[in-house]
């Protein structure tokens, strides 16, 4: 049983949570669209280049959508771009890709723009069409389109998901030698 679980986890995790097994480290995702943030109110310390958004905060960029209660962002002095973003309170992150929409919730999410990585903590839960996963920490590597789960990982998959052949073997069987007539 344990062996089966490990096999499932090792083989299916990238597919399960929408992270494709990237064959090689990809360059940073090209996010050409704007970052937009909406909130009820805001408090800006322009000398420190700190931006605090409160109340029904919604943020979006070409790769994902985020909502939370409180969002704090720090801006670089050189190019007016956010370097770090911390979302706190009822954090919801939605990522849409070819697998559908994946939804992550947690109490806190930290985005590091230099690494293009989002770390979700405080009881993170991930849900997508393949199942539900809980753990201590979720690391969403946007640059490589990968997802890492750390600590007390627990996955719940509906039975019908396990029947999908794509979970346990490649969708396309490897091409064998052509048989002659």
């Amino acid at each position, binding site marked *: 049983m344990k062996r089966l679980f490990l096999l499932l986890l090792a083989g299916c995790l990238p597919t399960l949570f929408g992270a494709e097994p990237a064959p090689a480290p990809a360059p940073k995702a*090209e*996010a*050409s*669209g*704007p*970052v*937009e*943030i*909406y*909130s*009820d*109110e*805001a*408090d*800006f*310390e*322009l*000398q420190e280049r700190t*931006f605090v*958004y409160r109340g029904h905060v919604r943020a979006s960029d070409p790769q994902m959508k985020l909502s939370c209660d409180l969002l704090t962002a720090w*801006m670089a002095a050189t*190019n*007016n*771009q*956010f370097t770090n973003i911390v979302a706190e309170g009822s954090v919801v992150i939605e990522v849409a890709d070819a697998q559908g929409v994946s939804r992550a919730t947690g109490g806190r999410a930290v985005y590091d723009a230099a690494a293009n990585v989002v770390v979700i903590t405080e009881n993170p839960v991930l849900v997508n069409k393949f199942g539900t996963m809980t753990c201590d920490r979720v690391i969403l590597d946007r640059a490589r389109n990968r997802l890492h789960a750390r600590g007390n990982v627990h996955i719940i998959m509906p039975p019908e998901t396990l029947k999908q052949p794509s979970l346990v073997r490649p969708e396309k069987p490897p091409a064998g030698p052509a048989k002659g007539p």
Partner: protein
Amino acid sequence: MSHPRAGTNDRRARHARRASWRWAALVAGAFAWAAAVQAQPASAGVVRGLFRLPEYDKDEPNRIRSLLTGVGASAQANGLISMNTLRWEGYTRDGKTNLVILGTNCVFDARNRLAYSPDRLRMESPDGRFVVEGLGFLWRPTNSHLIISNRVHTRLQAPPSAPASTRP
């Protein structure tokens, strides 16, 4: 021949009369000034048109840090200055504009050095890639602290990517 003490008394009397006239003139002037001030409506103020408040660096007094300007400024009786439009520009060390704040229907509190308005605010970088809009704000130019009360919208456009290499 008059007595010398009599001449001294005359001079003292003349001096006393002049002093009393001066005092009376001063009191009359003060009353006239007070009457003139009271005759002006308290809330009318003086329309100054353009209001300018530059702020200079404490360490480098010749270097301007920011400039607050208001159009349609009028002084209120309570020391506040109301402005139809407000514009604040922040400058980098080399004198370039790095941020612009625009507001309408603003009040500037010169004593506490803050501006506020119930109306719309727009803050933007000179290249237009960073824009913040909102409704209702309080702005402290001295420490660059901005509070927006309602409907905040921030739009941040990534800088243009570096041009592709033209090396053969």
